[in-house]
């Protein structure tokens, strides 16, 4: 049973709590996975062409825009990597972890989580059908990648919900 939660502690801090040992490991391994962003599969997905068939525009884009995007993605990864060093036990429970970080890092967290999911999906050729499966073979690297994509996706979903709450509160 996962009691994963994302909460805004105050105006300045966000906390991810209820991290099981497995989730904590998955988060700690994110920086390593993010380093794979420049591999051929991941790079084609993270830095796609802007047109389907215009070679001139695509070439210019890859020269001018993709390096800028790469810089953005690397920055997000660095922020999250630093935040992860502050991961501690949740309420003193050695089996459950939490991590608290500044609210300005929310976008970096969302970016890094999604980058990780996309890199894993490309590396293991995960498709729509794989994403709908609920049975996982613990001996299969692909199944473990899908499980990781799902769990990190759940955390990303909690971040989106938090952003929605914040935007609703801003409108009131």
């Amino acid at each position, binding site marked *: 049973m996962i009691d994963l939660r994302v909460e805004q502690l105050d105006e300045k801090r966000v906390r991810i709590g209820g991290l099981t040992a497995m989730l904590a490991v998955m988060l700690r391994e994110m920086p390593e996975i993010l380093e794979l962003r420049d591999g051929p599969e991941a790079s084609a997905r*993270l*830095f*796609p*062409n*802007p*047109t*389907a068939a215009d070679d001139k*525009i695509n070439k*210019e884009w890859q020269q001018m*825009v993709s390096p800028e*995007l790469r810089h*953005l993605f690397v920055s997000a990864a660095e922020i999250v990597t630093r935040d992860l060093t502050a991961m501690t036990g949740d309420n003193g429970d050695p089996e459950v972890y939490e991590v608290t970080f500044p609210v300005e890092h929310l976008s970096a967290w*969302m*970016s890094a989580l*999604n*980058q990780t*999911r*996309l890199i894993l*999906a490309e590396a293991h050729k*995960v*498709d*729509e059908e*794989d*994403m709908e499966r609920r049975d996982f073979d613990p001996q299969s690297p692909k199944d473990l990648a899908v499980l990781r*994509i799902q769990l990190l*996706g759940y955390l*990303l*979903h909690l971040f*989106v*919900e938090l*952003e*929605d709450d914040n935007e609703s509160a801003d409108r009131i």
Partner: protein
Amino acid sequence: MTPSNATGQPGVIQIVETVTKSELSTPWNVVVHNDPINLMTYVTMVLMRVFGYPRAKAKKMMLEVHNLGRSLVWSGGREQAEHYVHQLHGYQLLATMEKSKT
């Protein structure tokens, strides 16, 4: 992108790129494509953030992406289309721009 400046120096062949009025006025479409990984809630949030769309409109477009494989999310000038595709790629959405056929 903008054509390069002519130098006007003797012995230098000038290649001038011309852009006709009709090309300038042809709108560009920004299209978001389906992918199996991006969350539906995440895609909706991105469309709201990038284009300032209300939730209902963003959600309708997201469902179009999910069910039909793609959704035309914006149409207009080329520079602005490039800007939006850049932003969508920043959020890791699969997005392209294409000249409108109309």
